[in-house]
């Protein structure tokens, strides 16, 4: 890898742009594609276009042989994202765990006493109401949304927005009873069973978790399970 390719790749990562590095292994010629546009390196044979697009979509690097040579297509997608609604005690455990697992995490809570820098050092905090926050964050198929407030005033607007998105994991903390009332409210708001079934509630795998950190582990485990299950 030349220093120029390394620098261009790091710049793409910093800007959260999807990048693909295509190497021809026979001579180590390298082409960097950022946001679908070639930025450095030689033109690629058109036969590679679909492979490159598929690799980005599936977030899967791949080696392949063509009449033009042996190629390695390496995907550098922006990190997965996690939006945590509710800057509560469990969030203080979940946020660093998710960061370790490679997620870019944003915490949403209009209550400034909760979403305080001192409680979440170096974490992006959003103090808008959750529906506005979710509109701005625009969850995509590589985003998880977890609500932790137990307060329908805050959780419901976030869940409503999440259900209208492609978020790969949506979860809401709260007991089975709390979740049953939540399901009823969402029904009343016009969501059908299939849509509501996207919400994992109560959030997390049933590990018998008790402490905030243990509950965070159960949520992290379920998020991983959903992410890695074949869809």
């Amino acid at each position, binding site marked *: *890898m030349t220093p120029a390719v390394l620098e261009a790749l790091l710049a793409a990562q910093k800007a959260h742009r999807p990048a693909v590095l295509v190497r021809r292994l026979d001579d180590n010629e390298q082409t960097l594609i950022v946001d679908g546009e070639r930025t450095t390196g030689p033109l690629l044979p058109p036969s590679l276009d679909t492979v490159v697009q598929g690799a980005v979509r599936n977030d899967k690097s791949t080696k392949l042989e063509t009449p033009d040579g042996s190629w390695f297509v390496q995907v550098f997608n922006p990190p997965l994202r996690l939006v945590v609604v509710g800057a509560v005690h469990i969030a203080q455990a979940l946020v660093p765990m998710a960061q370790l697992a490679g997620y870019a995490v944003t915490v949403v809570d209009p209550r400034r006493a909760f979403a305080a820098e001192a409680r979440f050092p170096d974490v992006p905090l959003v103090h808008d109401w959750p529906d506005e926050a979710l509109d701005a964050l625009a969850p995509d198929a590589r985003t998880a949304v977890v609500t932790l407030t137990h307060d329908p005033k805050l959780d419901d607007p976030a869940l409503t927005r999440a259900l209208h998105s492609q978020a790969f994991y949506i979860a809401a903390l709260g007991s089975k009873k709390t979740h049953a009332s939540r399901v009823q409210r969402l029904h009343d708001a016009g969501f059908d069973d299939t849509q509501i079934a996207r919400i994992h509630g109560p959030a997390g795998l049933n590990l018998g978790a008790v402490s905030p950190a243990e509950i965070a582990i159960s949520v992290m485990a379920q998020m991983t399970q959903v992410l890695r299950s074949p869809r």
Partner: protein
Amino acid sequence: MSDDVLGTIQSWRAEGKRAALATVINTWGSSPRPVGSQLGIAEDGAMVGSVSGGCIEGAVVTEALDIIEGAPAKLLTFGVSNEQAWDVGLACGGTVEVYVEAIP
């Protein structure tokens, strides 16, 4: 813990250290790290990231140090039934191909 292999390599280079990059480009059977996984190696032997569960990193670093010193980039294959000169294999029974190159 830092998984930022490329960022770490860049900071080594900023300190004036030469570096190499090892990338998993193919796997067969059971393998600990998926295709695309990377290991950065500095000329002083420092490492960031991984290409296996620790089974082959030692051998990859040895090759990487030669490549930092000017040997050409190389495609290494590690597997259980490997006839090459490698002493190292994967206990899990899989095979991996690792491409090692200098970042001058």
